[in-house]
């Protein structure tokens, strides 16, 4: 019953909620970002990060640093925090925490399959996989020739198995099929996660419904924009949209027939929450759309911490850390390429 979580939540999840709120306090502030944006070299960035929670992960890295090294080590911090919370969690929180990583699992599966199609070494591909999305038999993905084999040999024993029912064909894996597989899996995952959160009820259902609906809507917009000018048909495009969210179903009908960014804008401006996002963009421009969406997402994720006794704080923390790592990646790239004037193009401040 909504409103009575305070009676029982702390019994099983009180410790972990306190932990995650402590982790939240360790996120980088605007002052930290201002210092980082003024760095001249990647070693300067390492020096500034040594005073943050990333310090222990970067301190032993030798110079010269590379941007991928900084991202890799900062990701280790996220992975350690996650694993600590997962091993302390009981049901249903443990299942909730596992759901958060399925997106990375899908990305890793597609990475291995695509890389194998391009005749890359599987060990090289495994090094590029996200650590949160690893599972035991992931290396076996390299032997599959089509989706049926992919499912039968490897994925049937993974949490992604239920999402494969719409993808199983005997068609050979090629670039287009892999892309459709990626988006179909992600759609099935988001819908399943949404149903799980609704079943949990209470504040978790309310907050997570909002966050996942935003995720589904953003995906729909990105799929639309990225498929403009490609061979993806309108029907195929519509099949990739999730069956929930603010844009479902009428927004999806309109997005499916959009042929340029201005038509997408026309559709999205009918929805007040997205009007503010598209008002920041000039006509015909889509470069700043990602940043606008990230800013809106960060706002919603920070609001999740304003309420207690729900699982949304765990999801929000993980996503805020991922945003922070994206910020660090961008700042590192701008410093490495000597393009500090462009650093504020993609940095999204959290506090």
């Amino acid at each position: 019953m909504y409103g009575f979580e305070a009676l029982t939540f702390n019994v099983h999840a009180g410790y972990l909620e306190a932990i995650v709120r402590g982790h939240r306090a360790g996120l980088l502030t605007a002052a930290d970002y201002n210092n980082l944006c003024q760095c001249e070299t990647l070693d300067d960035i390492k020096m500034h990060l040594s005073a943050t929670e990333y310090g222990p992960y970067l301190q032993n890295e030798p110079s010269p640093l590379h941007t991928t090294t900084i991202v890799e080590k900062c990701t280790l911090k996220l992975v350690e925090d996650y694993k600590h919370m997962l091993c302390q969690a009981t049901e249903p929180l443990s299942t909730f925490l596992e759901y958060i990583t399925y997106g990375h699992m899908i990305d890793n599966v597609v990475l291995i399959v695509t890389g194998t199609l391009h005749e890359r070494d599987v060990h090289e591909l495994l090094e590029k996989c996200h650590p949160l999305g690893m599972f035991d038999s992931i290396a076996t993905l390299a032997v599959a020739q089509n989706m049926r084999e992919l499912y039968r040999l490897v994925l049937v024993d993974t949490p992604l198995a239920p999402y494969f029912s719409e993808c199983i064909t005997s068609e050979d894996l090629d670039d287009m099929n892999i892309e459709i597989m990626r988006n179909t899996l992600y759609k099935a995952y988001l819908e399943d996660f949404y149903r799980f959160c609704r079943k949990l009820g209470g504040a978790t259902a309310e907050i997570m419904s909002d966050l996942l609906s935003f995720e589904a809507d953003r995906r729909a917009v990105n799929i639309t924009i990225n498929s403009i000018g490609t061979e993806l048909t309108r029907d195929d495009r519509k099949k990739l949209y999730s069956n929930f969210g603010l844009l479902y179903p009428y927004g999806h009908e309109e997005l499916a027939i959009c042929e340029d960014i201005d038509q997408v804008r026309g559709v999205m401006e009918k929805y007040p929450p997205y009007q503010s996002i598209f008002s920041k963009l000039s006509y015909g421009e889509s470069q700043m759309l990602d940043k606008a969406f990230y800013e809106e997402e960060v706002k919603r994720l920070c609001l999740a911490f304003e309420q207690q006794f729900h699982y949304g704080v765990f999801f929000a923390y993980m996503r805020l850390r991922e945003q922070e790592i994206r910020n660090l990646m961008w700042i590192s790239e701008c410093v490495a390429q000597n393009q500090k004037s462009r650093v504020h193009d993609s940095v999204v401040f959290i506090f």
Partner: protein
Amino acid sequence: MEEQDQMQSSIEVEEVEEQQREGKRLEEENVVRFLDSLDSYVTLLDSLSSTLRQGWLELASARQSMGASRINGALLDLKSHSAATSLQVTHHDDEILNQPHFTLCKWASSKNGYGDEKLRENKLQTNSDGPQLRHRSQFAGTPEKIPETKGAPLIVDDQVQKERTKSLSMFGTLVSPKLRAAQLSFETALETLVEIANVRLTMLSTSDQVRKELEGTEG
């Protein structure tokens, strides 16, 4: 008689002066041509630098947008491909500009593979004054130039767009507009590189001519 001799000598003097003026004019023309090519060379180098900077930043931006797992070196295709772009070297028969000329053949059709490769090998083995194709492509294989038909620019544009999309497909078929922008930047940089090569050849050629004229004058 004396008058005739005087007229003859004055005509000869005028001819010599005319030749000297002509020679000086040619020298000045060569110097101007050299300075023009030097200016173009420096401008193109600057343009290449800024285009490449823009391209690298757009690539980083695409990586930010799509995620590091979708844009990384481990996804580059190692299978053998037909070359999408090749460099054509032609030799001018012009006496003044006896130097090679580079032309970029962008986004050539890659439909035919081995059959055309055999045909091209045979063509290259024959001694001809025609253009000699050299490969400077990112993939192994052979290019085939798209026959540009006048009156069908839209078809050519569509084919070019398809080739561009095919090139990017190693990162997925639904890629961010930022990645497409990065592709265009690097494409422009490639064109600029070929222009730089041509301008550099002109610059070196005119520089040689100017130096020879200076040495001749000092001698």
